[in-house]
């Protein structure tokens, strides 16, 4: 397993959001974190990144415990993060958002940039435009591209299809399918169609706990599971 969560508890204010989350993310696959609103999916990603306070349990990345490390150190260990709000710097241009992420412009970074710009070609067209002026889909592309150019062995992506048109969701699906050939992804997604299109494995959270997990093929067949935990009729 590239990433392992063991009995993870996260408390925010007086709210005990994660109440013993345990699951693993295999290397080279897309693991989709599913569940109803308020189940703790986004909090799980934030806890992995050190952005939400973990009070008990462990997060192991490449065999090393990282739950007590500062966020920038966790990121440098090889975890990229695409938050639900995309986390773009609206007053910075597309170029500046990407250059900030890249840091040193060495050949491997340049190759990753060229590859991701080939995948999300809209970003080349708007290179000098402020990222705050982009459309929703373009912002999402930029947010994912920015995480990818950093050479991370694991990408945490939170609801990439949120607020996007069906055509843009289709583009996101294609994009994530290409990216998954080069890195491991832990994806939070409410859109079950997208989840089933890109996911290799699933984990269902309910009430801050992991209630079910397994291969995506199993979830695709199990309508009762879909109805019970995802509200899909």
């Amino acid at each position, binding site marked *: 397993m590239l990433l392992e969560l063991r009995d993870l508890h996260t408390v925010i204010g007086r709210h005990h959001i994660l109440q013993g989350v345990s699951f693993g993310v295999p290397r080279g696959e897309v693991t989709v974190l599913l569940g109803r609103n308020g189940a703790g999916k986004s909090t799980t990603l934030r806890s992995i*990144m050190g*952005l939400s306070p973990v009070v008990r349990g462990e997060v192991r990345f490449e065999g090393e415990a990282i739950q007590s490390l*500062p*966020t*920038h150190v966790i*990121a*440098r260990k090889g975890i990229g*993060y695409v*938050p639900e*709000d995309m*986390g*773009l*710097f*609206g*007053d*910075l241009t597309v170029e*500046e958002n990407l*250059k*900030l*992420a890249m*840091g040193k412009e060495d050949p491997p970074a340049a190759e990753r940039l060229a590859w991701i710009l080939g995948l999300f070609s809209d970003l080349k067209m708007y290179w000098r435009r*402020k990222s*705050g002026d982009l459309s929703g889909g373009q912002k999402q592309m930029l947010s994912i591209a*920015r995480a990818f150019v*950093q050479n991370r062995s694991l990408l945490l992506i939170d609801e990439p299809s949120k607020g996007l048109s069906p055509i843009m969701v289709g583009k996101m699906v294609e994009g994530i399918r290409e990216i998954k050939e080069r890195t491991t992804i832990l994806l939070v997604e409410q859109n079950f169609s997208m989840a089933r299109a890109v996911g290799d494995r699933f984990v269902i959270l309910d009430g801050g706990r992991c209630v079910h997990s397994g291969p995506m093929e199993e979830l695709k067949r199990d309508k009762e599971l879909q109805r019970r935990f995802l509200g899909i009729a």
Partner: protein
Amino acid sequence: MWVRMDIVINLIINGLATGMLLFLLAAGLTLIFGLMHVLNFAHGGLFVWGAYAGVWLYLWTGSFAAGLLGACSAGLLLGFVMERLIIRPVYGDPTRQILITLGVMLVLSELVKVFWGPNQISVPPLDFLEGSWRIGEIVLIKYRVFVITAGVLIFALLQGLLKKTRVGLIIRAGAIHREMVESLGINVKRYFLLVFMLGAALAALAGVLFAPYSGAIYAEMGMEYAILAFIVVVVGGLGSVSGSALAALMVGLASAFMNYFLPDAALAVNMLLMAAVLLFKPSGLFGARR
């Protein structure tokens, strides 16, 4: 009411000069709050210490350049000490930040009186910038033109730092979304000391430039000008140097004209300006955008 054109132009020059001084004071404050989320109520104390240290060196050496250098050095040193000893322990705690920085402001003002006495100090005009140029009916006071030029130069240097360097890119991004900068693997706290010292040096520079402009310096002036600086920061947008520049000019011009036509209402007009901006555009004229 008809006003002569030469008076209007003089008021504009005064307003621009005051605006530039306010910009220097506010630029550091906006960067400190934008990136570090620190409410530095001691910023006025740095302004006063810059004035006193700079004037003391100027009067002792006869060189205003030495005074400028002395003021900036005092600002850098005070900024270093303040960030390490006073601000660092209270990151993320706004209540303690306000209390502790207000306390530091009072201490800095009182220390000025300990070293230089309680009375105001007269500051003679600079030899090479004494007097004025005359263009027809219009009289341009040389020192005010110098202050405007210095302000424009420093604005250009700051924009160069922020827009053309990686450090500047990190500061700008951090002022917009600090958490995301850290998620990209960048240790934002490493830049806090740099930004705090830069802000302190700018405040101190504003102080020493203010001294020949007003002709006298006194310990309480820090609080007076800090209030105007906060107005500028709010109007311009937290974390925006361009916003601070524009807002400083607006506040400077408003002050100059109101001080001529209706002196009692000068501060009130600027407060109204801040209230109007907060009502219609709470993020300020150039507030940062995610």
